[in-house]
């Protein structure tokens, strides 16, 4: 088990930056009182961020991933979270072997 000094500094830098992003919202929220369209925009943050993270994998990787993502989305409204993940993983394995 070895630990490189530069690697350690890089890890600490990533950790500090990440913690900063995690607590920054705490200080912004105090000044945010939202109504109407602004509230709709703020409420849209969760799905907007989640979708943006996975969109490249789901849409532009290949047909197997795109179709599997569509099947997963259909399952997501009918199954609990773990069932949804299982459907998605099985779908992508089957489709990658077919396509």
């Amino acid at each position: 088990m070895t630990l490189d000094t530069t690697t350690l500094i890089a890890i600490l830098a990533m950790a500090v930056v990440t913690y900063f992003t995690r607590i920054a919202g705490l200080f912004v929220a105090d000044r945010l009182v939202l109504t109407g369209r602004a509230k709709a925009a703020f409420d849209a943050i969760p799905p907007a961020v989640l979708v943006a993270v996975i969109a490249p994998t789901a849409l532009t990787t290949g047909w197997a991933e795109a179709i599997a993502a569509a099947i997963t989305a259909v399952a997501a409204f009918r199954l609990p979270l773990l069932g949804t993940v299982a459907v998605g993983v099985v779908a992508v394995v089957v489709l990658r072997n077919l396509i």
Partner: protein
Amino acid sequence: MDQANPFVSTPRRDIQAGLRDIAPVAVAALPIGLLFGAVAAAKGMTPLEVMLMSALVFAGGAQFAAIETWISPAPILTLAFATLLINARHVLMGASLTPKVRMSRVQTLLAYFFLTDEAWALSERRALERPVTGAYWFAMAVVLWANWTLSSTIGAILGSFLGDPERIGADFAFTALFIGLVAGFGKSRVTLVTVAASAAVAALVHYFIGAPWHVASGALAGIAAAYLAAPEEARS
């Protein structure tokens, strides 16, 4: 069980709810952690370095991006900037969640060390019905943090013995998990418009410009779309 008062919140019940909600996420994150550790080891990181990074950074997206571009010696400023870009979404998530958590300021500062996409999405879903307590949050946080740190360390030790993760579809677990979480926000017109705009812009930006710009641009497009799609006179 207290059938007459199903909405009374006790620490014990909140811990149970937190564990129940995070269980499928932890199971889905397990292969991702193993995958991360294996990839990091292949790039020359030691198991100790992998463990430290997972324990201290605790942000899968940023860690995968860092490993993707990992060279030795590590480019500290480049890694810090990429981490800032990828994790900038935490600012929005923290701002959105803060009015819904029932914790003191000091507790929240500690609690938000464990802020992840998953814990946050589950908390937002729970906040639709009741406030997010410290018992609920820390039950989720500790499980997810231990799960991520251990699985990535084990992945680094096992290294190349794992084989090709694509063969067993493990690489898609993250995507399927997020689709499941998004579905939890319902299918109102505003939500559907948000999802469509975010997906389209993120995919296009990733294709033509590249990571990690797709996260911020897709998220902003979705938020702007929601603003425009919502009725002007809507009341909160």
